[in-house]
């Protein structure tokens, strides 16, 4: 493990910005399996932070810890300057963390529009009471949120499939709808789990452009897991590299690329 690579200040865009999330000494075990071992890194406001590593390195576990699907046995997570107590994933969603999944997790029976509308739930609540009191009231609120959703649909250029049930859409478009659903929550921190997996070159370029636009235009902080090194190098401001549940490097794409530990991990040098 090279201490220099970790501590060296990076020259990325996120540099100098305030820390949005600080992950401190997080360890996660499933029975005897250690998924995460003493992992620490931070995510700064407005940056695109990539998490890379070979299969089984603990990248997805890390994302699941951040959005509350897993609760680490040790370590702390600081969010917006406060230590975050253990919370349910749906509460964490309400605190402004949205995500997409490695294997698309859309609501398959619903249309594109309805899928993205569910993303607004953190903003508008479920309105059981307002529905019960006066349907028109809830309806008016719905229209306002609908406008925002239409803007996201415009932004992602998916107007033609607004009413299509998502189960019928091709893979690349499903990924885009899932991104739309996450964006609808107007998250402070957006987690993307392998957003480019299974895409062709053209689809990858499209999605890269959207991710950069989200980051630029909305100022959304993004943490993403990705396997395509080209994409990672182009998109991200800073990169965390993991292997066997440990962090082995942290820094700008340039630094990480030249790090011997990283090269070893990817080439499979025996431990």
């Amino acid at each position, binding site marked *: 493990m090279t201490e220099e690579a970790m501590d060296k200040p990076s020259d990325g865009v996120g540099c100098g910005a305030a820390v949005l999330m600080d992950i401190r000494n997080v360890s996660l075990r499933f029975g005897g399996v250690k998924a995460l071992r003493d992992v620490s890194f931070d995510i700064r406001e407005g940056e695109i932070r990539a998490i890379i590593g070979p299969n089984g390195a603990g990248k997805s576990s890390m994302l699941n810890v951040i*959005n509350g*699907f897993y609760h680490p046995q040790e370590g702390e997570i600081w969010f917006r300057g406060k230590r975050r107590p253990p919370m*349910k*994933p*749906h*509460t964490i*969603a*309400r605190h402004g963390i*949205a*995500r997409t*999944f490695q294997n698309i*997790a*859309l*609501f*398959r*029976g*619903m249309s594109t529009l*309805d899928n993205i*509308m*569910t*993303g607004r*739930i*953190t903003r*508008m*609540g*479920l*309105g*059981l009471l307002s*529905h019960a009191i006066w349907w028109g009231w*809830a309806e008016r609120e*719905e229209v306002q949120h609908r406008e925002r959703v239409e803007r996201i649909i415009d932004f992602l250029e998916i107007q033609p499939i607004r009413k299509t049930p998502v189960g019928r859409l091709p893979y690349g478009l499903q990924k885009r709808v899932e991104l739309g*659903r996450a964006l609808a*929550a107007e998250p402070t921190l957006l987690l993307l789990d392998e957003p480019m997996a299974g895409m062709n070159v053209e689809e990858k370029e499209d999605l890269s452009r959207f991710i950069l636009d989200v980051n630029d235009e909305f100022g959304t902080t993004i943490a993403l897991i990705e396997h395509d090194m080209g994409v990672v190098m182009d998109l991200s401001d800073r990169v965390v590299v993991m292997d066997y549940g440990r962090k082995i490097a942290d820094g700008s794409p340039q630094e990480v690329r030249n790090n011997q530990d990283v090269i070893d991990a990817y080439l499979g040098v025996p431990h």
Partner: protein
Amino acid sequence: MHEQLLFALEVSLNGLMTGVLYSLVALGFVLIFKASGVFNYAQGVMALFAALTLVGFQSGQVPFAHLINAVFGSNIHHFGWHLPVILSILLTLLVMVLLAVVIEKLVLKHLINQEPIVLFMATIGLAYFLEGFGDLMWGSEIKRLDVGIPQGISESIENFTFESLGYGFFIDRLDIVATAVAAVLVISLTVFSQYSRVGRALRAVADDHQAALSVGISLRYIWVVVWSVAGFVALVAGIMWGAKSGVQFSLSLIALKALPVLMLGGFTSIPGAIIGGLIIGVGEKLFEFLMGPLIGGATENWFAYVLALVFLVFRPQGLFGERIIERV
């Protein structure tokens, strides 16, 4: 021959009305199954429990009277009042919502991420518990339920059909009311699940638990809502069946008739539950009418199950269920 045909028509009509009542029970199953993938074996007992509670409130029965009397040696049975129908229905509804909260807290909460079979077993346990609890709370004797639904043969229909067709149809007024109620219930449930926000969240939870959590939907909240709605449907079914044949244990066995209804209609379709109920209702009455005399009668006991079996072989997802596609 003409007479025979009209008689068959009357039998079918009566079958339709019975079918509506089957549908009402099946509807409760579908609601819970759609939202949580749980086959709620206790749905029938919930209908019985709701009806018992309604009668209890209405007639001013003291809950747990037998228990209280046995422990304290007292002899109280009635508060000595009679509550208006609307108030008792509202109170019963409140009890059903409370029941939903308790079920979520004591059962479902601890079984998150378990296999569907585990949840199914839990609902079997729930069914037996609720059955005993209902007995303990309100007593086990057969009770008459009267919420002011008109009963008996509708004379106006009989007269009208007699004058126009020369054959008077016998149709129970209760069945007509039940049909109307079921229609309203189905329409409002469909609107609720298709157009309300909670409905959308409900469908979201049905599709993908993890994704639902990640957009900020609390599964536990949705489960309470779903079980409350199912409790409400159980109450409506309990009222209709209770008014028809008295509030008694056999009410919970109607749930078994809802099974073939669900196999026909598909476990995930609200319209399917209705159509399935109607087909079974008409089918078993017509079959009894046409074939009963030939094969010795009592076909109503098994016809529905055989029909469901045929469906299981040729169309396992039911008429309206989501297509099961196995990728190999």
